[in-house]
């Protein structure tokens, strides 16, 4: 094969023509993204479906969702390098890769989302330390740097790059000190996930989002962290399972996937208990306290079906499923439970972003539904085009699945 000398040692990959064709599809998606991004930068954010009622739109939903889904990176690194769960070494590489894609993709999208991208650095220079968004900005940037460092050894271990002795030594030494970066990443991402939740929880004049809390942190701060670490491992495993189905190869032992499922299940159960308690208190005490009711908070098209879907079908159900060993043993059921788990987190982030703004607070204000434009969808699809591209290149050329050779021999 033309590029087989670049593949990880001992593995086979698909035909180069097929791979180039796949890359062209990724390129087409990115071209679509490019057109949308260009229009938004050239003509302004009037190209989107956002307005003064929906200050945040599709992009923030995607940002929050992918950052939660990418939490597998920091949490798996934490469990693998610091808690030293050996089984997770089989999947930590791909978890870091997915985290890298999610974080860098989100940063690129945020660059389009702010009205004055050239002034993006003002958040660091004129930082308002009271703002949760300042915390988000600092954490997302610094953690993206940590993810690059965490991913670097895998890049340097490419068969051709590793032939340069200096790169090989550097990669080896990076591995040895990875615990430092895993610790730093855990700290940064912990606060990043939390501050994203805090961003909504502190909006005390927006009754849908506002929550009381502990010291300066609203409950959403902790709920966002917990939901992210409950979902991140599921999303990582889901990506691996999809890759296995698409490529027809065994990449990660099922035992590792089951462990990831168990971790997700335990954390999701803890999250659901707290989330249900939070929702009950909010619905029974906080909402009536501001003269409103659940009917007002869940108006069509964002009706109570969203509440049942988020907390029931995509919350309690996958939590129970993931706790059952027989479900985890079954490839199909594990896949389904993890898919529901990930859908639940996306719904949660959607609800906090869109519904918080949709509910009119002034009694004489009207309700307006949100609809993104094609330009907004184009920029939003960045995460697909960019994600597929980077993931495919990494799958083909980097040793991110250490057990693949062993599994293929079985």
């Amino acid at each position: 094969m033309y590029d087989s000398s670049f593949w990880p040692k001992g593995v086979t990959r698909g035909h180069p023509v097929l791979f180039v064709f796949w890359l062209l599809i990724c390129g087409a998606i990115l071209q679509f993204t490019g057109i949308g991004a260009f229009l938004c930068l050239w003509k302004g954010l009037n190209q989107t479906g956002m307005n003064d009622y929906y200050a945040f739109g599709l992009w923030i939903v995607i940002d929050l969702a992918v950052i939660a889904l990418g939490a597998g990176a920091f949490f798996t690194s934490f469990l693998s390098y610091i808690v030293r769960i050996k089984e997770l070494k089989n999947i930590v590489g791909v978890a870091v890769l997915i985290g890298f894609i999610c974080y860098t993709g989100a940063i690129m999208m945020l660059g389009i989302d702010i009205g004055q991208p050239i002034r993006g650095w003002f958040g660091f220079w004129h930082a308002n330390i009271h703002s949760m968004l300042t915390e988000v900005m600092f954490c997302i940037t610094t953690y993206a740097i940590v993810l690059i460092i965490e991913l670097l050894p895998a890049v340097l271990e490419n068969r051709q790059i590793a032939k340069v002795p200096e790169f090989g030594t550097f990669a080896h030494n990076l591995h040895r000190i990875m615990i430092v970066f895993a610790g730093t990443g855990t700290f940064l991402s912990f606060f990043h996930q939390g501050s994203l939740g805090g961003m909504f929880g502190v909006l005390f004049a927006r009754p849908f989002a506002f929550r009381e809390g502990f010291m300066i942190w609203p409950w959403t701060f902790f709920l966002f962290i917990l939901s992210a670490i409950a979902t991140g491992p599921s999303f990582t495993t889901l990506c691996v399972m999809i890759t296995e189905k698409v490529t027809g190869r065994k990449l990660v032992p099922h035992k590792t996937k089951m462990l990831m499922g168990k971790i997700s299940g335990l954390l999701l159960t803890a999250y659901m208990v707290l989330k249900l308690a939070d929702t009950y208190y909010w619905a029974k005490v906080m909402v009536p306290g501001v003269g409103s009711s659940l009917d007002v908070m869940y108006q069509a098209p964002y009706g109570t079906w969203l509440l049942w879907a988020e907390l029931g079908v995509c919350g309690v159900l996958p939590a129970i499923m993931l706790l059952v060993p027989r479900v985890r043993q079954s490839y199909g059921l594990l896949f389904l439970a993890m898919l529901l788990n990930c859908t639940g987190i996306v719904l949660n982030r959607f609800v906090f972003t869109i519904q918080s703004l949709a509910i009119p607070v002034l009694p004489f204000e009207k309700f307006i539904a949100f609809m993104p434009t094609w330009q907004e969808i184009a920029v939003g699809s960045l995460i697909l085009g960019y994600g597929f591209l980077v993931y495919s290149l990494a799958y083909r050329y980097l040793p991110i699945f250490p057990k693949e050779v062993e599994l293929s021999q079985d």
Partner: protein
Amino acid sequence: MYDFKKIYRTEESRYGMLINIDKCTGCGACSVACMSENNSGVLEDETNKIRSVTWLRVYQVDNGQAFPKTEVAFFPRPCQHCQGGKVGNYKEGFFFEDPDAHENHTPCVSVCPATATDYDEKTGIVSQVPTRCIGCRYCVAACPYHARYFNWYDVPWPKGSERALSPFVSPRMRGVVEKCTFCFHRYQQAQNKAFKDGEEKIAEMDYQTACTEACPSGAIMFGDLNNPDHKVGQTIQQYQKEGRFVFRLLERLGTNTKVFYTTEREWVRRKADNFISDEDFKQALPGQKG
């Protein structure tokens, strides 16, 4: 009764407004004066009201009754210049009398990542620095009054119109947020005048907002709420003693604003906040009167 020094917990100036809804005819002169004074431009398509910039928007409300019982009222809504405070007990009229209960948080100021909006402790005015705004719109999301506007478009200023612009306020560019500043440039001019005249405090009539001056029916009153010599505070207290409804918008959220409204009509009062039931509403009323 509103005790301004208690609810704002300071002896410093706290500029605020009293808007008499029963006097407002909905003519929109205040909005026009505001746009002219603050160099707000006219967009190509002003029919899209969810993207146009209206620092002072006039909302029309009605009592929901069929003709001939229909009644209409208008709520002029500038930025409410929230100070923030503990969510009060509405049964006692939403007063925030516990000085230790809460650190002051203006909803929008506390969230801005780039310190592009600030709360002036000397005047109580919430400022906006468009040249520092990065356009993240977090403040727009935080404001329940829809008083903050993002510039979705560049204003297509007609050729020569720059000669008609006010030299005291910078026109804003696309991609930044803007809002009512209680004509802060007028405050600065009044300060200069007071300094020149050797006065310690600025005179009441030296600092009036453009909307206050433009209102033909005298529905808007402006001044320092903490200054007992200013008419605005005196009138609020007089109205409360007379048994009129005096209130602020969405008071039970604890935004602790500085724009007061007054009316004699109960249904209009009810429109100013969210209430679960008639009983809930009735419980809120006694504390508001003198």
